[in-house]
């Protein structure tokens, strides 16, 4: 089997991170996040003054998003090649990854709606802004399941010649723990557990983007076990 497409797709992760973060930080200036404690007028003012750069940022994020799909396909290919590969774990990973793409699409759309008519009532802008930020953080309640499924699949693999190294499984479990920090964001407007807080935003953000980078490296170093035999 030819691995060259897989290696190409393995670059999807870093490309997604780069494009998304250029849009998110460079253009939209969403880092640090718009505070959940801001009033409707404050939020509306941000969308009014930065309208163009926010829109450019959103376009970067949306295009970046498309690269997660080939990337995830590359991981799924490897998961299926693992020894003792469990179809249940693969399907779990597929469903969560597909759902995540939808969430990210809808959340970028929601920012787009907020910035599309910046002269409308501030409360409406704030509502779409809230929706987007909650949709950005709250998937952390779901994503860990895909990390755990992937980690378990790696552990079940052949111990002598595993496709992914065993430490990568434990790293996935750790990323799962890091991500869960945002689960309770709907209770808080400020503090470490709010959507701009240390535990709910900064740590899960590092885990989320870090996962794409580490996984990409692991993918590029992995080998098709059947091709190895020939």
């Amino acid at each position, binding site marked *: 089997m030819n691995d060259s497409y897989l290696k190409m797709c393995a670059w999807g992760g870093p490309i997604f991170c780069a494009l998304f973060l250029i849009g998110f930080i460079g253009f939209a200036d969403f880092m640090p996040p718009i505070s959940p404690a801001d009033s409707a007028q404050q939020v509306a003012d941000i969308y009014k003054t930065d309208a163009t750069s926010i829109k450019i940022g959103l376009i970067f994020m949306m295009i970046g998003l498309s690269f997660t799909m080939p990337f995830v396909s590359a991981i799924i290919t490897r998961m299926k090649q693992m020894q003792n590969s469990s179809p249940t774990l693969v399907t779990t990973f597929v469903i969560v990854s597909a759902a995540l793409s939808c969430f990210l699409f809808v959340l970028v759309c929601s920012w787009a709606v907020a910035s599309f008519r910046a002269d409308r009532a501030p409360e409406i802008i704030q509502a779409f802004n809230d929706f987007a930020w909650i949709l950005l953080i709250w998937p952390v309640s779901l994503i860990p399941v895909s990390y755990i499924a992937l980690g378990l699949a790696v552990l079940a693999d052949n111990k002598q010649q595993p496709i992914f190294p*065993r*430490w990568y*499984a*434990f*790293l996935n*479990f*750790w990323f799962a*723990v*890091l991500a*869960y*920090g945002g689960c*309770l964001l709907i*209770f*808080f407007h400020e*503090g*470490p*557990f709010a959507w701009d807080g*240390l*535990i709910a935003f900064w*740590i899960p953000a590092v885990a989320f983007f870090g996962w794409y980078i580490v996984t990409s490296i692991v993918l590029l170093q992995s080998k098709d076990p059947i091709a190895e035999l020939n």
Partner: protein
Amino acid sequence: MASTPENLTGLTTTSTNSSKEYLPSELGVWMFVLGDMLVFSVLFGSYAWERALQHGLFITAQSELNQTFGVVNTILLLTGSLFVVLALHAARKGKTKHTQQLLLLAISTGVGFFINKVFEYRDKISNGFTLLSNDFFMFYYMLTGIHLLHVCVGTCALIYLYKRLSAQGLSTDYIKHLESGGIVWHMVDLLWIALFPLLYLIK
């Protein structure tokens, strides 16, 4: 660990190569445990930060906590850790029945911790203290909640070990698993040992 004739005859995972240090379980598990403790350090750090900013409020709110619940839970977790260690020793000596009994005792301390915590939460909520009362209670519920989640995961790991022992019996592979379970359980214990004084005792 010196390789005496006794532990070579029993079911031991001790490395016979004396030049190499023996690592219980595997490196990945230790990495995970250290990573998880790093997360808790960040949580403790942000707690300490908020506490320094609102010292008076934290002291007043802290006095609402019932130390008895905390002490009972500390004793439960410490005994649980002891049972896991004894279970590992029994397993290494090949005593299946004894290992099972000790694992059951360890599982019951985990369940006991959970039940005690639920009663403590109910007590706090009935006194009107919730997650949103103030920053102290936000940290109290979040830190103990995240820790309780760890207790649940650890207890599930012990239940898995118990079931696996009943189904497949003792093996070197099983002892590796038991060591991993033990390490995770000790971590849960260690985190509580840090959490308990931070939330209940520090003045």
